[in-house]
């Protein structure tokens, strides 16, 4: 069953074309990273997935239904879009109220809401803050509250817009584990990001967007190890890939992106030398 189908999408903003000839399909349960430089059109693209934007030309189908025939409120039952800046969402007196907001809008019964809110707060390590004011929390905690407030209704498909901005190493680590967990539980996860090392660690399918159109759509290792492609998209090569490609004349595969694969490959070669010397 196809979750998101985009057919011949064109979108313009104030007489300027922002998206052109977009065709893509994301299946249920996939893990996809939409990558590209700032201004490439990534956020504009994902805003079509929950109906915030409607195509000027072409079609976007969510679970078989065209977004033109639906409202954002209706689509948000199944498509949860987490925005980049949590401060653009927070407005409630308590964290509990904040997280309950979307389910109240969607008309769920109070009892269900209470259970779900409690659950998601525990899952995201925010249980202690249920009665706290969201404005009193630290930056990282506010980001988790914003995440909780979208995930509380347990949407089938989750989109995260630039989730790694301003996050430190540990926070990104936790985020990555959480995303992978959500995906392994059967949810479709789409992340919009330009954080290359983060994508290398997540290992998703990558859709590369540049200047409003799709440059490439493939597995992360095919795309991120392709130096020309990465340059064309105004991105930077992942460090391990750059290292490996600088050693190709020593017969190392340039397609190695993972830190531990690189270590193994190098150690294997070092081991051969030792054996030769012996």
């Amino acid at each position, binding site marked *: 069953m196809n979750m998101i189908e985009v057919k011949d999408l064109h979108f313009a903003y104030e007489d300027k074309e922002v998206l052109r000839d977009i065709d893509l399909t994301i299946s249920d349960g996939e893990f996809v990273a939409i990558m590209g430089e700032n201004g490439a059109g990534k956020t504009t693209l994902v805003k079509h997935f929950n109906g*915030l934007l409607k195509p000027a030309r072409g079609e976007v189908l969510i679970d078989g239904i065209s977004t033109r025939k639906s409202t954002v409120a209706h689509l*948000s039952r199944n498509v949860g879009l987490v925005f980049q800046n949590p*401060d653009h969402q927070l407005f409630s007196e308590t964290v509990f109220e904040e997280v309950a*907001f979307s389910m109240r809008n969607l008309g769920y019964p109070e009892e269900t809401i209470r259970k779900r809110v409690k659950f998601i707060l525990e899952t995201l390590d925010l249980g202690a803050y249920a009665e706290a004011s969201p*404005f009193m929390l630290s930056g990282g905690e506010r980001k988790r509250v914003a995440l909780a407030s*979208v995930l509380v209704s347990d949407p089938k498909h989750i989109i995260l817009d630039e989730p790694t901005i301003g996050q430190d190493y540990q926070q990104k680590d936790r985020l990555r584990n959480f995303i992978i967990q959500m995906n392994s539980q059967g949810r479709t996860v789409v992340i919009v990001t330009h954080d290359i090392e983060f994508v290398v660690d997540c290992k998703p399918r990558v859709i590369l967007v540049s200047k409003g159109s799709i440059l490439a759509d493939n597995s992360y290792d095919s795309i991120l190890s392709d130096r020309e492609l990465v340059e064309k998209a105004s991105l930077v090569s992942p460090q391990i890939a750059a290292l490996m490609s600088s050693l190709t004349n020593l017969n190392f595969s340039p397609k190695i992106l993972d830190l531990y694969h690189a270590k193994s490959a190098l150690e294997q070669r070092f081991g051969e030398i030792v054996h030769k010397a012996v």
Partner: protein
Amino acid sequence: MSIRLFEGFKFKQKATLLHRMDPRPKFLIALTIFMLSLIFANFVVLLVLFISQLPLVYVSKSMRRWFGSMKGGVVLAAMIFIMNFLTGSTLVFSATMTLRFIVLVSAFSMFFMTTSPDDLGLALEKARLPYTLSFTFTTAVRLVPTIALEAQTIVDAQRSRGLELDRGSLIQRVRKYVPILIPLIVSAIRRSTELAEALESRAFGAVKNRQPLATLQMKPLDWAAAAIALAVLAAGIYVQIYVPIPSFDNGIRMPTLWGVPPGS
């Protein structure tokens, strides 16, 4: 009041004669038109005044938005007309008052569309307004697109959580704006702290006498325009006092329309 009314007062950078002019003579032109519209209560004169702006608007390449600003003010204009007519003024008089309002809006719309807020700020400075005030003005203008974009993002984020702004009773709809206003206000507070930090770091207010890099200089064209505006104003005053202009009022009043003879 439609958004088009505001569009008609927004500055857009273009390379026209009017855009290049110093803001002060432009303001004088707008003021002259305004004052002439007050001096004359004659429908035809006002119509001439209105039409005389068209070549200026054409030169400034802002026709569409200029007309848009008037379309946006239609509600107000209609109210003025109705209020005048219902309180006993003649049809023509009511139309004249309405036209006066339109002339006012159009004159100042043209001024704001062709004058950059930066130049306005400089003009205010030249007028000996304290720098902190003119700075507040230009910074406010500079922030308008930024805050507008943020408001849109907040609306998007809350709609993505199921908020439906276009449904419900009037009271319900007003309450639904709370999740929009609070993040906007909180963000504004945060923004002003960051702005203040940056201002301190750039020594804002350290010295009383600033020598701004950009200066306003009146060029021959500016002097000529100012002179013409003043001459037209003077001529208008002369005409109003000494030259009798026929009235085009046909005396139709509201009571007349209802069958009551005029004068009773």
